[in-house]
């Protein structure tokens, strides 16, 4: 399905990442959104508040992030595409509802413009320390998808991708921006609507009397039902059977939660997305995502000037983690260097994926500023020896 022209601002723009993310959501068909102000994500909700009324949609600033994160789910069951936007403390408040969306298979998007933490931390400065929270932040076993854009253009393009993946897999998608990407202004090209592919919501073909709301086919993703059409389905955050009815048993838990996890794990190849720079002959493999993947481009340049065969592997979809490809590259490398704005989060996943094929070294940073490419270079030089 092609994008609804109403929401697409075709043309060449000069936008910051927050605004570009908003335009991506509108292009993806988001017409109902809820949010709460919090730096550095406020510009997303400000823009969507001014844009939605022009395209036949509604934005409501809710009383808190908890309300926003469940209002989107009410809207989605009502047939809308919906998202909410926040940062640090607000995302922490939303976590219960990430779990609800995972459990009830509600396709929706949570935008996290990451700032320095923990707690109130550094509201106006960048961080990348919510990466594990995005994956594990709600209680219980579940899978989500997370995407880390590194430019305003990607904030637009990948926001559409986020909505599409949410629909295809019926999961919450975490859109992991950061303060730097959110506040940097660059050229953003918005294509014409017929060049934007939109994943339609999959509705059941069964009549109400035959419909089982949580019975999935081989793709493990059950089709949804429209409301008000006699399907009279029940949705619950309790462990439920294929009818959607609560069942308190280990068997029901095994059947449901196993599928929720498997629908992502067994189809990870379809979801994973990464970028590579100069990896063909890389002996030192840098791994970075989001804003940091741009910072280390400079490191890459400097290293190559010094004759070090350095390359960069950048997870674009960070969860599920593109580990298979990383392992292939690591096998040919002398060392893997993970650069991230935290004290060691995705590095754990990198170590897991690399699985001893090469030594893994972390270049941590507490956030509040970006890495110095020359400092990263020092580590590259060290491990290249």
């Amino acid at each position, binding site marked *: 399905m092609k994008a609804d022209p109403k929401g697409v601002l075709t043309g060449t723009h000069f936008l910051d990442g927050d605004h570009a993310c908003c335009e991506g959501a509108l292009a993806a068909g988001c017409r109902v959104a809820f949010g709460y102000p919090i730096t550095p994500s406020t510009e997303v909700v400000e823009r969507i508040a001014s844009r939605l*009324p022009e395209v036949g949609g*509604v934005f409501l600033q809710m*009383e808190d992030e908890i309300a926003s994160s469940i209002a989107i789910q009410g809207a989605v069951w*009502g047939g809308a595409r*919906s998202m909410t936007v926040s940062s640090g403390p607000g995302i922490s408040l939303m976590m219960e509802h990430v779990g609800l969306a995972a459990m009830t298979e509600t396709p929706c998007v949570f935008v996290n413009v990451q700032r320095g933490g923990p707690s109130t931390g550094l509201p106006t400065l960048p961080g990348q320390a919510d990466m594990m929270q995005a994956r594990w932040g709600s209680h219980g076993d579940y899978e989500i998808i997370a995407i880390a854009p590194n430019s305003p253009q990607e904030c637009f393009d990948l926001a559409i991708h986020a909505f599409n993946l949410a629909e295809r897999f019926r999961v919450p998608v975490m859109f992991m921006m950061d303060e730097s990407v959110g506040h940097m202004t660059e050229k953003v090209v918005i294509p014409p609507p017929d060049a934007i592919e939109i994943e339609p919501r999959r509705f059941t073909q069964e009549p109400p009397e035959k419909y089982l709301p949580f019975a999935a086919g081989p793709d493990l993703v059950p089709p949804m039902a429209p409301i008000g059409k006699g399907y009279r389905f*029940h949705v619950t*955050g309790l462990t439920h059977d294929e009818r959607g*009815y*609560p069942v308190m048993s280990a068997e029901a838990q095994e059947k449901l939660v196993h599928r929720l996890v498997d629908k992502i794990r067994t189809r990870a190849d379809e979801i994973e997305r990464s970028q590579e720079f100069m990896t063909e002959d890389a002996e030192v493999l840098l791994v970075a995502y989001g804003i940091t993947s741009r910072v280390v481009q400079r490191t890459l340049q400097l290293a190559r000037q010094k004759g070090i065969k350095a390359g960069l592997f950048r997870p674009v979809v960070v969860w599920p983690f593109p580990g298979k490809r990383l392992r292939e590259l690591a096998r040919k490398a002398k060392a893997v260097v993970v650069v991230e704005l935290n004290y060691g989060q995705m590095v754990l996943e990198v170590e897991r994926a690399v699985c001893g094929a090469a030594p893994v070294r972390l270049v941590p940073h507490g956030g509040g500023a970006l890495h110095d490419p020359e400092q990263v270079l020092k580590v590259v030089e060290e491990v290249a020896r």
Partner: protein
Amino acid sequence: MTQPRNPVEPFLRMDRMPHIWCPGCGIGVVVNCFARAMLESKTDIDSVQVVSGIGCTGRIAGYLRMDSYHTTHGRAIPFATGLKTARPDMKVVVFSGDGDLVAIGGNHLIHAARRNVDIKVICVNNFTYGMTGGQVAPTAPIESVATTSPFGVFEQPFNLAFLADSAGAVYVARWTTYHVRQLAKAMREVLQKPGFCFVEVIAPCPTIYQRRNRLGDALDAMRFYKQQSKLSEGADTRTLDIPMQGPIPVGRFVNRDRPTLLENMNTVLGKRLGAKFTPYPTGVTR
């Protein structure tokens, strides 16, 4: 000869019976009154969406054979707000308990009332957290006993009618589960009334609240409601406190008209944006 069927059966998920509520619990009465209100008002079953939070009353969504959502603790109202915003043509009814709606969900309650979101909130007030075994609720009368107030509650409880009224609800009523006719009528009225409507239902909890407080069984509760309810139609909501084993003021206290959230949105945006703005559907005909 076929077995006569209860007329409310089409509204129930009969394949889920028996339900989890205790003998003598008042929640079933509330479900019955709602089904009767739907029947009597000839409301299309597929035009109504039911949202619940967590707790004993939160299970109502699971027993109504309608599009129904059992959400998280305290958050039925913001879910309902999202649903109503996406589908203004639907009637959205929230059923939940006093703990769910007023303790953990209290902020959402007052903001939805302030905004005049066009949803109907049926709050079953049994003065306790039944599902978890009888902890103190924000409605628990002073000196009542709860597992987490073993020597008696010493906090001032909420007067829910006053709370809903002062936050801006356009319809506020309180009945007990003894008042099945009045309760069904109140539900009929709110199904027809645009805006944020709040119906409090005082309900017995013989297993937990009454047992701990030595207040007898379900029948004693009914007798008590019959004897102690004081019809107070149109009363000043500040006067509607419910003392421990004191009189229970009941009736319809508030019935006024205010534009709904979406109506207000259309008015303001229409004024400011002019021709650029297409009015959003509100689901309200006036």
